[in-house]
């Protein structure tokens, strides 16, 4: 049995966890936008302090948040490197052959790195504190006002839920098919890129067949449980805006104000 955890939800009991998913979604978007406006080190300082506060409130082990950074190490080095070497600047600190490092370059690179790190750490708080279902419910509810212009909010949310539910099942299935093919002498590990891609074909075909079969059975099971889209449908976990939610939004707005203040420095 494969123990895949979907997303990276870390369930505990904290204010941030209980916060309405819609508020968290909007809050994360606001945070990202505000970060893009930062143009002074003080701004990053404010953002870092703010983030530390949120992490403390969310009771998530900081090591989990730093783990998210590992995935972007390459992008980080690349982005910082580009800025370091290719930023046109006046104050040359170091010059050797075609390598030219300027003060402006260093500034740009460090800005870029800090922005990326704060961005990834901030958005990982959303996925760590919100279960996939809450997240899709939140997206559905935020898209609901767009229904008059034919945005199928409920369908999108149901689609995402089912996709999340079946990722581990299909992964397990693929593993099984691969083992079955290996047992009959299939070779997935040697040869060039083209050969390896071709050797995936005997896996993908049965995987697709079984995915369609699953979809058919699932549709029958959903119909048997009276599913008919969002007609007359209720939710067990009704989303509601309480004082905590409004305070959360208020905090985000204050944070935005502070960021804009640092631009004046």
């Amino acid at each position, binding site marked *: 049995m494969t123990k*895949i955890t979907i997303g990276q939800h870390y369930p505990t009991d904290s204010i941030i966890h209980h916060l309405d998913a819609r508020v968290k979604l909007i809050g994360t978007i606001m945070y990202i936008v505000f970060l893009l406006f930062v143009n002074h080190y003080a701004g990053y300082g404010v953002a870092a302090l703010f983030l530390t506060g949120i992490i403390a409130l969310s009771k998530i082990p900081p090591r989990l948040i730093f783990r998210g950074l590992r995935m972007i190490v390459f992008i980080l080095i690349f982005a910082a490197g580009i800025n370091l070497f290719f930023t046109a600047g006046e104050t040359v600190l170091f010059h050797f052959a075609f390598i030219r490092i300027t003060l402006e370059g260093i500034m740009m690179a460090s800005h870029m790195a800090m922005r990326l790190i704060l961005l990834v750490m901030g958005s990982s708080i959303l996925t760590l504190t919100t279960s996939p279902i809450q997240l899709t419910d939140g997206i559905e509810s935020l898209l609901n006002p767009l229904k008059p212009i034919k945005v199928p909010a409920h369908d999108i949310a149901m689609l995402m839920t089912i996709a999340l539910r079946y990722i581990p099942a299909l992964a397990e299935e693929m593993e099984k098919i691969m083992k079955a093919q290996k047992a009959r002498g299939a070779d997935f590990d040697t040869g060039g890129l083209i050969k390896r891609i071709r050797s995936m074909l005997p896996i993908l075909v049965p995987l697709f067949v079984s995915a369609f079969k699953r979809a058919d059975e*699932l549709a029958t099971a959903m119909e048997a449980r*009276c599913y008919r889209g969002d007609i007359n449908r209720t939710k067990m976990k009704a989303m509601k805006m309480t004082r905590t939610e409004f305070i959360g939004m208020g905090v985000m707005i204050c944070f935005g104000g502070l960021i804009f203040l640092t631009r004046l420095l």
Partner: protein
Amino acid sequence: MILGEKLTFEYAAYDETPPVLTLKGVDITVKAGEFIAILGHNGSGKSTLAKHLNALLVPAEGTLWIKGADTKDAENTWRIRQTVGMVFQNPDNQIIATIVEEDVAFGPENLGVKPTEIRKRVDESLAAVGMSEHSLAPPHHLSGGQKQRVAIAGVLAMHPECIVLDEPTAMLDPSGRREVMETITKLNRESGMTVILITHFMEEAAQADRILVMDDGVLVMNDIPRNIFRQAEAMQKLGLGVPGVTELAHELRRRGLDVADDVLTIEEFMSDKAIKSLL
């Protein structure tokens, strides 16, 4: 509670071959609170019959009433599906949500039940199948038997009066099979739930109040388990067997030992006079 007369159903064929008749005039009656097992080899029409019971399929000819509501009438569809819940064979392909309790809530959510009431129903249903402690687990971390119990809870939360189970244990290991059977029999005995169990396992069918045997779209036997399994040879002709212990009794009888021909359980077998006199 369930009354069907001359039910006929055919699967439309894609090419020019004649359509396949999977039900050929089946009459069925089920009383409230009954535990019925349906037996039949592959392709005998038992799954097709099951799908008629909650209006997933409607008969081409004949009429099926669920609590007086005709399944052919589209207006009754949702009420019938709420009255008759259905559990399918593959536990993986009927769980919709990524968390156990949210899946159990799926049915009542579709019915438009109030949130506080859904919460109550979910907790009660999970308790009824003994899965309360796993209410927050992701389904893919559960065993097959546990997943089937969650599926049963999902049906229970809709407050049905009858549950149809289409080979719910076919993909489970022996311990999972036992878990599911215990849950089903408990629901039937303690809550008076009407249960219709489609199965390939004779030991499971033996626990029912009544057994229906299907063959080639026709209902060929309809009797209490004791009388059904007494006819071991007739069952064999239909491609079916009898419970292991019943078969043993039949073999012993053929070799001249006077064992009752209708034993269904090991306990019964052991307390049979002829066996006792041997020990």
